[in-house]
């Protein structure tokens, strides 16, 4: 079976682990537990051409305590940049992460605006977010809590990874 490495990146607390856990185990927890280093999960995803085993590298949130580590991106077939629509700063940080990642890989990337079950607290206008999203191959508004678009987003990244 084809095996593809996918990296999940984003600022602290945007819900990277929650999204991965929802997708892999179907579980969501309200409790925030910070990720240390990298957490690796596997899941088989059917695509239109074949089944793909995703190796999901859920990375520690990038913030003042943990810098961006390009070594972890090596060999990634695609990556996800997660932002949190209840925290405006997370989009700015997400775009910085994309630009750092682009110095090391041209693998396809998806922009995820997570926590869409919560009130939108960021002040970005939709067209601004659309402009940022143009730098990605796709954009999804997800909620790890309700599961909205989580499977579709991972299916899409699986399809992008084998293109």
């Amino acid at each position: 079976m084809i095996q593809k490495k996918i990296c999940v990146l984003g600022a602290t607390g945007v819900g990277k682990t929650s999204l991965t856990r929802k997708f892999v185990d179907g579980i969501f927890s309200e409790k925030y537990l910070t990720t240390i280093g990298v957490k690796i999960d596997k899941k088989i995803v059917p695509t239109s051409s074949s089944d793909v085993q995703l190796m999901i590298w859920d990375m520690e949130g990038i913030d003042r305590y943990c810098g961006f580590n390009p070594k972890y991106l090596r060999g990634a077939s695609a990556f996800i940049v997660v932002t949190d629509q209840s925290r405006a700063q997370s989009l700015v940080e997400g775009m910085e992460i994309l630009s750092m990642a682009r110095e090391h890989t041209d693998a396809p990337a998806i922009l995820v605006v997570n926590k869409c079950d919560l009130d939108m607290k960021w002040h970005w206008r939709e067209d601004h977010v659309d402009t940022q999203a143009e730098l990605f191959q796709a954009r999804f508004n997800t909620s790890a809590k309700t599961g909205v678009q989580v499977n579709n987003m991972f299916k899409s990244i699986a399809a992008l990874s084998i293109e």
Partner: protein
Amino acid sequence: MKSVGALFEILGLVDCAILKHEKENEFTVIHAPLGWFYWLFPNANVNHAINIDDNHSFISNFLLDANEFWLEPDSNQISSGIWSESIMAPSGGEKLLCLECVAAYANGEKLLVIKNAQTAHENKQETLQVARETLLSHDKILAQHDYLSQKLQGVIKQNSTVLELHLPIEQAIQNTEIGVIITDSEKTPLFSNLAAFSSFALDPVRTDTTPLAIVQQLIETQFPESSPVFLNDKSWNGELYWHCPPDFDKWLQVTIKPVKNHMGSTSHWIIAISDTTRLKHLLQKNENLMLKDALTGLPNRQYMWKFLEKKCLSNSPFNLLFIDILRFKRINELYGHTNGDKILKDIATKLLSIESNTCHVARIGSARFAVISLLNEYTDTSEQRVAARILYEDINEMMSEPFLTQKRTSYTIDSNMSVALYPEDTTDAESLVKAADMALTELQDNQDSNFQFYSIEMSKANEKRLQLEVKLKNAVDKDDFRIYLQPIIDTETERVVKAEALIRWTTPEGEMISPDVFIPIAEQTGLIIPLGNWVIRQVCDLLTYLREKKINIKLSINLSPKQVSDRYLFDFIKETAIQSGIDAQRLELELTEGVLLNNYDKAVSLLTSLRNMGVSISIDDFGTGYSSLSYLKNLPIDYLKIDRSFISELESNDDDRAIVLAILAMAKQLNISVIAEGVETKEQREFLNCHDCEEIQGFYYSKPIPVDEFVHFFRQQNG
């Protein structure tokens, strides 16, 4: 392996597996604890070989670094950092393992140690959990604070008097945890909620002072330079420390915003107060975690911000110098990340030699460093500039000395440096950083110097550029571009054999914007991809149009660096050519030498695919870059275009003549055709014709012209 026990002691390990590297991904198990290691490698046995493949993706990834380290170990060991993954245990059920890999070198053996890092993981998680929860709460409070003050500003603007505030809004403000004070234009409080009073432990009924009076007094004493806060009709934002012994000491985030009426004058003021004391203390506790760069040990970006903010409150001048290591990605590509990290550490060590009480160094980006150099308060601007230049020269000298990789290979780095002066250029940390950044950007296309002072003109140009960016985005959406063609002539027959397609942009206001201006912006903003694709589509359509007019020539298109990096470029060219029904042999792509060298691997694969499809390739501006013979030999190149700078003085400059003749001779040997660009005179044409330059392009025959004019020109020229 005799000394496993001793090795344990050296490494300080207990619960770990030790593997000896044999070849490629093959290891012999020297020692393995029962349990988790066998869950990870179910078929492993002590003293037998195992293979580490992509199923162990984290370890495989670390082996790339380990292999580099084992080639030339410069320290005892390197570590992978902690990772965790769920493994199926033989007893059934998944177990979460927290592990860490170490590559070590002992007694001539290459060792891979896999450690159970459960405890380290828990300890780190415990510390960072608190730190990150604090950080998130802090961000949340500040976001709420900003949101509330912004919303209130809008609400009050829409209501002519605060008394007309709707009841639900008033109730909402009364109950919020953020202190809110609304005053009239004369700063007389019209409304203060309970949180505003409780922020300063005041009883609203019995107090003889007001929250606003305390805020004003704190600003006057703690931010003397901003004392006339209410005078200039501008917003103010800052952190105030309120100390009321023996019971209270608080940190308060305070925002003051004017509300303007339709005449543009201030009708009200809004003051928002958030208590950040708990978070401030927790953040201070985690200060050490926050302010160091893990790789180099230098202070990091956050430190630089704090330090700059502090220094911007003083009256003493200082210089902010940025150092950008150029093409650092190339070092990682050539020598691997371990060597890249080593060079960064070496740069840090060199920079630390200038560290003193008045000179502070920080690493503020992956390949960027900052130096803040404090000056005597009596230093005038010209002395400040001299000091900045001396600092630059010292650092430049250090940076010019070669660095050594682990294999002792000598490597020279290139760097750009910029300086912003406080208070001459600007007086707050954010704009100072922006200024130094702008000056660095200015150096990007400067071949003559690697040092630049910030100037106000840069800000103006930057603003103009941002406006142009918006216009360009609209132009891309609206197809406001046209293709012009510049004929390429067979030198001997003087017939048109080809044309270069060049993009032209006229704004809806009729302003012609030069490609030299908008192409770099498109390149930097990523708009070059849709724009480049537009050109490819247009040129394919044009080839169909010309074919209908019985003009069967090649059209060439320029490719930019970003386009070459675009993984979808080849598919796009192929699909567009098929859709237009054109012969791919009619298409030619032009790349500069820089594009080839900076994206060599990608360029090789792209050019090979294009060549297989029938597209021809030419190297643009040849002679101005590296002019490397190896790529000319190894890459599928059909044409070299001699840069116009060698042609313009061909009649009078012996050196230019020699260079052109050398290029022509070399190309002939390599069986590559040559086109001379920028031919403007008969003498230049004659010279090139005499020396077998096959094709020429330039104003001598025609400038770039609209398509219909080109058709006319073609008919005239080719008869």
